């Protein structure tokens, strides 16, 4: 698989530093979508982020890092084939990223079977730290529970009491609607209606008109990918946000907003756990990332960086790459990185940190091509993620 120049650089660095340390060679496989709909938010950018983590970790600590990457095409069989091959024949120690829940669940199983480590950043399913949790998996960046609660709860708190859902008609959409409805109701809001849209869909006009006619304050988009983009474009054509209704995107990434443009996306409210323009540290790192890739990082790419960095710190602390010891260390040691700040990896593998409710800026307020969000609310780490006891993870019972 693709070897980076990094190993050469780190070896050269080692020669200069002398050989005072015992050597640990770590191989990290970045497995994600490099050609399909998630290529922008994961893809090559995640591999770059993993390399940056290795560089920032430093070459003077007796650990050499090699980063390889591959495309799973969002197909679980392709992904599981690569994962098996990496673990069995190519000596990969850690698989990172892995968007698309079906592929992530497959890699989750294989990693457990082979006793390696899986640092998930890209997948949404909260099952990874719930019923299907594994002692070998860390789920870093976000999950469906967090998205539903972040957007749902914070929107109601911000005054969006009545909701209408546009729900993609498949399990993921149903789950997102169900979870968000529960949050909205619990927070004192009201769901006044919902409509199921065929998946995958291109024409959302009649559903949007229904949502508009319902008079709900918030229209929740319980969909993802192309459905979200299409429904947002058409909502912009109807001028829904200008007419006073808010649109809440339940699974939208900064790259989607950048691609859609502010004219279309303005006023959309969404939750992310990372944005490049949060503070000086995120701005500094994102500028370096942009130099290498030409884009600002998505929260998933940021999660790959932070999770790999934390893993390398744990390897250093343990002094070997033994998966059990390293996982124990990762959970014991508090996390601290420039992108997500301080946090912890819980017993169920869930990494917790603050989440943010953002609103997409109006074109007039934006100062640059990536100046897209204004922060509406910060959701503290202990509220942002599902409580440990509620996930049904066998590891914590």
């Amino acid at each position: 698989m693709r070897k980076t120049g990094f190993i050469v650089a780190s070896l050269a660095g080692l020669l200069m530093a002398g050989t005072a340390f015992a050597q640990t060679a770590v191989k990290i496989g970045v497995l994600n979508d490099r050609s399909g709909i998630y290529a922008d938010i994961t893809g090559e950018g995640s591999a770059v982020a993993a390399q940056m983590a290795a560089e920032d970790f430093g070459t003077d600590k007796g650990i050499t890092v090699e980063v390889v990457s591959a495309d799973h095409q969002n197909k679980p069989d392709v992904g599981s084939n690569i994962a098996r091959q990496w673990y069995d024949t190519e000596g990969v120690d850690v698989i990172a990223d892995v968007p698309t829940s079906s592929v992530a669940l497959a890699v989750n199983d294989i990693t457990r079977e082979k006793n390696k480590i899986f640092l998930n950043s890209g997948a949404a399913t909260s099952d990874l730290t719930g019923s299907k949790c594994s002692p070998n998996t860390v789920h870093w960046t976000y999950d469906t529970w967090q998205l539903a609660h972040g957007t749902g709860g914070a929107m109601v708190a911000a005054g969006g009491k009545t909701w209408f859902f546009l729900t993609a008609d498949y399990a993921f959409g149903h789950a997102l609607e169900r979870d968000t409805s529960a949050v909205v109701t619990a927070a004192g809001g009201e769901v006044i209606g919902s409509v199921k849209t065929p998946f995958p869909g291109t024409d959302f006009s009649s559903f949007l008109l229904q949502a508009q006619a319902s008079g709900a304050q918030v229209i929740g988009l319980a969909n993802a990918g192309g459905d979200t983009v299409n429904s947002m474009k058409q909502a912009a054509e109807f001028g829904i946000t200008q007419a006073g209704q808010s649109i809440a995107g339940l699974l939208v990434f900064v790259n989607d907003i950048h691609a859609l443009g502010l004219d279309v996306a303005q006023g959309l409210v969404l939750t992310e756990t990372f944005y490049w323009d949060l503070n000086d540290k995120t701005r500094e790192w994102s500028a370096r990332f942009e130099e290498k890739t030409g884009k600002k990082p998505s929260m998933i790419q940021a999660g790959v960086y932070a999770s790999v960095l934390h893993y390398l710190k744990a390897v250093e602390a343990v002094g070997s790459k033994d998966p059990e010891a390293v996982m124990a260390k990762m959970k014991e040691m508090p996390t601290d990185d420039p992108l997500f700040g301080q946090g912890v990896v819980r017993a169920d593998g869930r990494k917790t940190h603050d989440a943010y409710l953002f609103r997409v800026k109006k074109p007039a307020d934006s100062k640059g091509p990536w100046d897209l969000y204004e922060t509406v609310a910060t959701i503290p780490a202990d509220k942002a993620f599902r409580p440990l006891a509620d996930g049904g993870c066998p590891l914590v019972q």
Partner: protein
Amino acid sequence: MATQTSSLDLSRSAGVEAPGMPALHMWIFAGLLLFGLVAPYILYPVFVMKVLCFALFACAFNLLLGFGGLLSFGHAAYFGSASYVSAHAAKVWGLTPELAILTGTLAAAGLGLAIGSLAIRRQGIYFAMVTLAFAQMVFFFSIQAPFTGGEDGIQSVPRGHLFGLISMAPDRNLYFFVLAVVFIGLLVIYRIIHSPFGQVLKGIRDNEPRMVSLGYRTRRYKLAVFVLSAALAGVAGATKAIVFQLASLTDVYWTMSGEVVLMTLLGGMGTVFGPILGAAVIVTMQNYLATFGDWVTIGQGIIFVVAVMLFREGIVGVLARIIRRPL
């Protein structure tokens, strides 16, 4: 179709040549078996198992297209539904792998009977569209049905114990089981092609009114080959579910139907060994070019265009023409 005339001459002469298996074919089968036996020691076993599953799938499809003359554009339905049923049987009902595969196969055959009995009433592009439409129905069913797990698919399917005795967890054990299943499947297809039934099929493919005038009930033959093809595609899909321990929407999606057409055309439609080679080429590309992202699909497209423009008989079809022997 222009391609059929050339393959027709070859297969027709194959039928006339000998009632048993010609020596050349015997040697090729022996070579394939030998390669299959040593492959797990040279190559990564899970990868070879994937090639085997797709080889059987492509051969099953070729049985319908190359010998029945019926272009189905919905073969993913049988492949995928068998993989769902087999995964469900192994995981929820706790069946042993051979019974799980059998259950998946029966499901695919049943589905083939239902869809086939409607689809064979039409010909050409209408037939293709009807099969595609039914396959999309199966796809939407798979998204919605509770037992398929929606877009997450059925995960962590146990590999189980063969006949309740031999553990299939080590890759090599499973490999030899898969090799046996696929090889038997290939021999069954070979036998079907060269049986009197197969000869009638070729007759129908070349000129259906003539066969009707000779007194054959062509619809029954077409339905029979449709069900056989669906069942064999089901064997491949059910086996794949056990190998990868998962069944997912990829297997029922229409691109899978397209991929099997590509494999068959690339290897050589209407040849015995072509689809095996076609499947091997495509799966190898998907596996070893995974690093290069977009290039997998672009590469497949280029290969397909080159194959259609330069050698329509497919790789094995061209070889057969060069050595003037049917392959």
